[in-house]
């Protein structure tokens, strides 16, 4: 999969292998997440996958109390925008925190990517879904 075209479909296929990847421009090294076919800087096609560490910090977040029909069973849940160590940001759920204590979730806190099976009525073979967890330093 790592040599596949940097399409959204293949991004999901890589998530299914528990790999969080960005598209990288071989010319100017711009990293793009969500992945793109064409470099945002030099507009060249031929970007390639680069596996990311999954480490990052919370830029902002919310707790969804009233969800769309398809996610209603999960509410309340936390959604975070995370700035990854390598530069790009990504939006995903934050697990391992109490959604009823949003005051305990801090902008700037360290998180790490994880993967869980996406449930939902539309998926026959469930995809893996990117999520984040608090990154705990064990002293």
């Amino acid at each position, binding site marked *: 999969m790592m040599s596949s075209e940097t399409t959204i479909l293949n991004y999901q296929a890589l998530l299914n292998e528990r790999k969080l990847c960005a598209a990288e421009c071989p010319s100017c090294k711009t990293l793009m997440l969500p992945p793109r076919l064409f470099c945002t800087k030099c507009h060249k096609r031929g970007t390639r996958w680069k596996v990311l560490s999954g480490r990052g910090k919370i830029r902002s977040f*919310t707790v969804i109390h*009233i969800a*769309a*029909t398809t996610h209603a069973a999960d509410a309340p849940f936390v959604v975070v925008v995370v700035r990854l160590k390598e530069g790009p940001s990504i939006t995903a759920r934050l697990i391992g925190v109490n959604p009823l204590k949003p005051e305990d979730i801090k902008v700037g806190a360290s998180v790490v990517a994880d993967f869980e099976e996406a449930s939902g009525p539309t998926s026959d073979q469930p995809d893996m879904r990117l999520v984040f967890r608090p990154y705990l330093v064990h002293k």
Partner: protein
Amino acid sequence: MINVSVVGAGQTKFGRHPEYDLRELFSIAALGAIDEAGIAPEDVEAAFIGNLSSDRFNDQCHIAPMMVDFAGMKGIPATKCEAACASSATALRAAILALESGLYDIVLAAGVEKMSDLPTPGVIETLAKAADNTFEATPGITFPGIFAVLAVAHMHKYGTTREQLAAVAVKNHANAVHNPLAQYQKEITLEKALSSRMVAWPLGLFDCSPISDGAAAVILVRTKDARKYTDAPVKIIASTQASDTMNLCDRDSLSTLYAAKTAAQKAYKQAKLEPRDIDFAEVHDCFTIAEIIATEDLGFFKPGQGGPAVEQGLTRIGAEKTINTSGGLKAKGHPVGATGISQLRELYLQLRNEAGKRQVPDADVGLAHNVGGTGASCAIHICQRW
């Protein structure tokens, strides 16, 4: 410089309209604008109609010909324009460009949305499709959730408070009391606003604009022809639009809207005006935080000062910078595809001294700020008294 004027405006009451079909709502607004301009439907040469998603809300695509036919304008070119909640401001822009091209002399710009045909969860789901479905709606973020993320970032950066958010709702409900076409014509207290049910933390129900049905329409002509139709046309002196990436995650800042700032800069340049020259503005308060960010993006207040400004009453009618005399999306209602033209109608009324008890004293220049979706679109129009 734009050389187009508004010579007629019409609007339905905003709210729940189980009694009317989409085309019926449209025809009431369109024929209202046509009557006010003193023309007949046959005089209209082209129409641009804003609508977010009749496809999902009403099981109906291709609404533009249906709308004009139903309102007596069968045969004219009719195009639907869509840019989420900024749909009708983009329809307005397309109409302005059509007039500026010289190909048409009288053009209708309108917007219509009937959201209440779907049950509430369906509305939430449809609105979420105006965010990037794969990368943001699928993880579960809703439309209120998008603006909640902006609110958290704004609070973190500037110390903006939930009380300041609530102050937006309180002010806009107070203004809507004097707008007979508003969905909610009653005041609310700060306590009530703050104690409402949580939707997407930190935004409660009273931080959110409602689910609405409605339509709005304006008749546009070139400014040099405008006095043929009315003694008090309203000049459009700037019309700009900008876009941004859909995804929150792909943006440099989460406490401002790049598309709004870009469109505002271009609008001020086009009108040869500064933010201080704007007497009043209708801004896109789909959520309370959006009004605070808007007043900063438009240069009315410094970044981070939008919250304190509303809390101190600086945006009340007649104060330093009057914002949302109509009641805003929050209290006037937000039939998404109709909102941009409804904002323009408020400018039209204010600049003709026809706004009744919500009239801004000595208003010469007004601005309309219409944001689409997650902020991926923004269109800005500046209007001037004749």
